[in-house]
């Protein structure tokens, strides 16, 4: 291959890095730039979010798809605030005692701010009741009425006994009291007679006495049986009196509240129920002087607690719809919980211990959640969907909602729920949920997909410059001078792995600016200049490059075998990228191929030992197919080839080495050596077309770093797919080396071009007769395959004869 024809594939230095020269606005530093347009490049996502938050229909909740660090939260918050401020605060929510069924507390709603007023009103009522009701019972009116009732009953009792006494004394019988009852005994001269006196009485008299005692005994029993009825009658009269007195005391207190809340039917009904409950339990408000046992003393605070108000959601201080972000979306934090307190060894609860979660705090507004955290907290996702589907929040323990707990506990009335839920998370989670959760699409109808990058048009570059200036101002950083700003923009194109696009990963932009600011301040500068950007990038790499330096060290010490000079049959320098999350780098890897006569197999050793990923295996199969289609369309492929990444002990994934692998195989077949001062990357289709790969900048720089360490001599270079040229955003040192003709980046469209550059020989094209030129690489490959086929046929025939013999 001639130098001229080789030069035709070389990428010009201008194309190695697309410089930023679009910032037309004249400025000295970034503070002079006007404020940028908000949401640069995210219009689709912004429109989706606005649509979602304005759409007042069921299921129009939002999933914001975007990577961590894209400032997706900030974007969502800004848009939600923009909307929420146009909406008034929603209702307050309270739980109150359900007097008919205390295990099912009732929910009451109030216009914003009135919930706390109601709570305070009820507290006032309780305080008033504490004094008003006992006072009513201590008043003369009550005492006089009570006394009258007791006296009336006493009179009835006395009347019964008096009539018995009269009856008995008329018969000469005395009624004696014992500690436990009554004894009827005959009297003589007013004294009880004993057995001797009795025996002296005449027979008839004795019989009369016994008959009288028998009769009076029955009378006595009748009266005794009337006693419980009289006691019950007394109790009922006292109870009725207590009710009247309590009703009088309470209605004065409650009427004012009823009037205040008369426009709220449910609240009015609650006040009626509370009033009735107080009246029904009037005796409870009278503290007994001394209980039978100390622990039986009724705590008046407990008695009055049933009229308290548990204010779950208080929007008193709010002027707009609530926006809630729950960073820890555990079940209690989202749904709410029912707390318990220990009481005499048992856990007890009541309506006052029901606590709201984020769903209720956001009710009538917006709830922002990280979907990865929602999914990683037990029971939360199902509970969230349940709330959305039922449009209500039912506060219960997860065990109860799953039917795992049978202990009696509270079942608070579900609270109507109207919240726009905005889930924020990675794309893959969205697609997983969409695929595997049938309810997901029904409940989250709006997908807001954030762009990872924007087109590097002149207009966008101008806007991006303003965005950088805005972010520097927002973080109170030093302003950037024009050159530094351009350099940041170029760096953002590199971050996007595309010279024609700009990364929208905002966290990495902020990190670059903040770290550049640090280095600028270190040198007492009032501006961030290009050297500070370089320093920030270099220092960051230095902090992260431990594994890269170990690989470089291994290559330099010939532990990891990479040749950068000479040539070798069946051996090529491939390029691989290591992605450590925050840091990506490339390095060369030796790929070797061996060939011999066989049955048409091309073995991927990585796959055989299960170190190759699916995409890598696909690349190998495409390679195998391309080989057959090109060189052996009409004869059986009688080849056994094997390809391996030498000294690779981890997994291999991706198809970006398929061009290199094919070239190694062809070199082995044709016995044509491959130049080791070159490396190649590119994926292959079945027709031999070289297709784009990822990480092209890192790959080129990886090989450049090795060659530079060994000494650049002008022969070194990397072959990349032609379609990857637009992605080039190489470092300045590579560009400088290219400008000095010390290092070359070649761009190819077809594997033949790569083969020609790598071998220094023409690959060769089929002529009109369908033959590759003799002596060309392809010609040698074809010849070798024909030879293998012939040999295989001969072997086959010989083996057939041997079997027949």
């Amino acid at each position: 291959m001639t130098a001229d024809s080789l030069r035709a594939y070389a990428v010009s230095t201008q194309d190695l890095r697309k410089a930023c020269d679009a910032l037309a606005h004249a400025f000295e530093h970034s503070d002079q730039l006007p404020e940028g347009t908000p949401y640069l490049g995210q219009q689709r996502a912004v429109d989706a979010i606005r649509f979602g938050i304005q759409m007042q229909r069921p299921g129009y909740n939002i999933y914001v798809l975007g990577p961590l660090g894209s400032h997706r939260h900030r974007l969502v918050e800004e848009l939600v605030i923009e909307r929420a401020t146009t909406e008034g605060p929603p209702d307050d929510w309270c739980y109150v005692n359900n007097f008919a069924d205390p295990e099912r507390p009732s929910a009451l709603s109030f216009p914003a701010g009135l919930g706390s007023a109601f709570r305070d009103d009820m507290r006032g009522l309780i305080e008033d009741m504490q004094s008003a009701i006992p006072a009513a019972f201590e008043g003369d009116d009550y005492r006089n009425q009570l006394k009258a009732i007791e006296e009336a009953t006493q009179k009835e009792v006395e009347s019964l006994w008096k009539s018995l006494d009269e009856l008995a004394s008329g018969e000469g019988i005395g009624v004696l009291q014992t500690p436990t009852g009554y004894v009827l005994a005959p009297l003589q001269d007013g004294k009880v007679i004993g057995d001797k006196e009795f025996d002296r009485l005449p027979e008839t008299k004795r019989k009369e006495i016994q008959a009288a005692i028998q009769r009076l005994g029955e009378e006595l029993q009748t009266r005794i049986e009337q006693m419980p009825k009289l006691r019950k009658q007394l109790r009922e009269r006292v109870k009725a009196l207590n009710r009247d007195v309590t009703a009088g005391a309470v209605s004065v207190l409650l009427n004012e509240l009823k009037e205040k809340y008369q426009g709220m039917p449910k609240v009015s009904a609650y006040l009626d129920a509370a009033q009735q409950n107080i009246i029904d339990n009037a005796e409870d408000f009278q503290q007994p002087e001394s209980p039978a046992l100390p622990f039986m003393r009724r705590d008046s605070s407990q008695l009055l607690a049933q009229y308290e108000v548990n204010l779950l959601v208080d929007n008193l201080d709010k002027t707009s719809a609530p926006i809630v972000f729950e960073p820890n979306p555990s079940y209690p934090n989202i749904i709410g919980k029912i707390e318990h307190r220990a009481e005499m060894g048992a856990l007890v609860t009541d309506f006052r211990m029901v606590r709201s979660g984020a769903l209720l705090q956001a009710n009538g507004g917006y709830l922002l959640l990280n979907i990865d955290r929602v999914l990683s907290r037990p029971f939360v996702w199902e509970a969230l969907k349940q709330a959305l589907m039922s449009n209500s929040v039912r506060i219960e323990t997860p065990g109860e909602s799953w039917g795992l707990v049978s202990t009696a506990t509270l079942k608070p009335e579900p609270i109507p729920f109207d919240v726009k839920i905005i889930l924020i998370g990675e794309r893959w989670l969205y697609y997983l949920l969409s695929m595997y959760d049938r309810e997901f699409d029904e409940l989250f109808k709006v997908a807001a997909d954030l762009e990872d990058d924007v087109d590097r048009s002149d207009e966008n570059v101008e806007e991006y410059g303003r965005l950088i200036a805005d972010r520097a101002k927002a973080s109170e950083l030093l302003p950037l001078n024009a050159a530094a700003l351009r350099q940041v923009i170029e760096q953002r194109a590199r971050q996007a792995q595309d010279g024609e696009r700009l990364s929208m990963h905002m966290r990495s932009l902020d990190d670059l600016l903040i770290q550049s600011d640090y280095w600028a301040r270190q040198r007492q500068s009032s501006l961030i200049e290009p050297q500070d950007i370089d320093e920030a990038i270099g220092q960051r790499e230095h902090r992260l490059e431990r594994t890269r330096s170990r690989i470089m060290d291994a290559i330099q010490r010939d532990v990891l075998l990479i040749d950068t000079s000479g040539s070798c049959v069946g051996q090529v320098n491939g390029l691989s990228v290591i992605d450590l999350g925050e840091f990506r780098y490339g390095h060369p890897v030796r790929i070797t191929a061996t060939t011999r006569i066989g049955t048409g197999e091309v073995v991927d050793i990585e796959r055989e030992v299960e170190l190759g990923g699916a995409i890598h295996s696909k690349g190998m199969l495409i390679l195998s197919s391309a080989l057959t289609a090109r060189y052996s369309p009409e004869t059986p492929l009688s080849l056994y080839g094997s390809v391996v990444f030498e000294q690779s002990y981890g997994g291999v994934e991706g198809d970006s080495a398929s061009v290199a692998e094919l070239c190694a195989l062809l070199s082995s077949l044709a016995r044509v050596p491959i130049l080791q001062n070159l490396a190649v990357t590119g994926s292959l289709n079945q027709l031999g077309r070289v297709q784009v790969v990822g990480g092209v900048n890192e790959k080129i720089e990886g090989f450049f770093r090795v060659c530079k360490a060994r000494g650049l001599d002008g022969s070194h270079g990397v072959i990349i797919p032609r379609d990857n040229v637009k992605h080039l955003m190489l470092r300045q040192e590579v560009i400088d080396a290219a400008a000095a003709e010390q290092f070359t980046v070649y761009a190819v469209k077809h594997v033949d071009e790569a083969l020609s550059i790598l071998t220094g020989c023409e690959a060769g094209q089929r002529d009109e007769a369908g033959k590759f030129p003799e002596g060309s690489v392809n010609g040698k490959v074809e010849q070798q395959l024909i030879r293998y086929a012939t040999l295989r046929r001969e072997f086959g025939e010989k083996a057939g004869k041997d079997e027949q013999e």
Partner: protein
Amino acid sequence: MRKREKMSKSEDSLRVLIAVTETCSLTELWRTVTQTVDGSRAEVVALFLHDERWHRAASLPFTREISRVGGTAADFTAQRAEQILADTVSRLQRQMQQLAAEANLPVAFEVLPESDQARLKTVIGKDENKCVLIAPSVLTHHPLLAGLIQSNLRVVIVE
């Protein structure tokens, strides 16, 4: 101070007699005792006036006790009368000792049959002026106390 020292002598202490029966409540009576004593030194003697009518009634073979609670009737024998007496004396004695201990007053307990006037005189002692009898109103006409109420002895009747 001097007066208190004088009052501390035993011969100057008040003698409080409480008349009780099987059916009366001690609570009201004891309240009157503490009001009467009012912190001064005193000795308390509980006089349990035994109702002998029970025993006479119990000697009759047909006597039955009708329960105050349910109206059921059961034989009222001499044994039952003795048991009631013993239980009542024991209960009242215990209550009295407890109340006296709380009030830090010495207490004695005497069981008097309703006909034993001589024993009653002995308990009252010579100096009637330093003796107070506290009795429930139901005992106003009790044969043992009727005479005392008419005498110079200071008597407090508790309703």
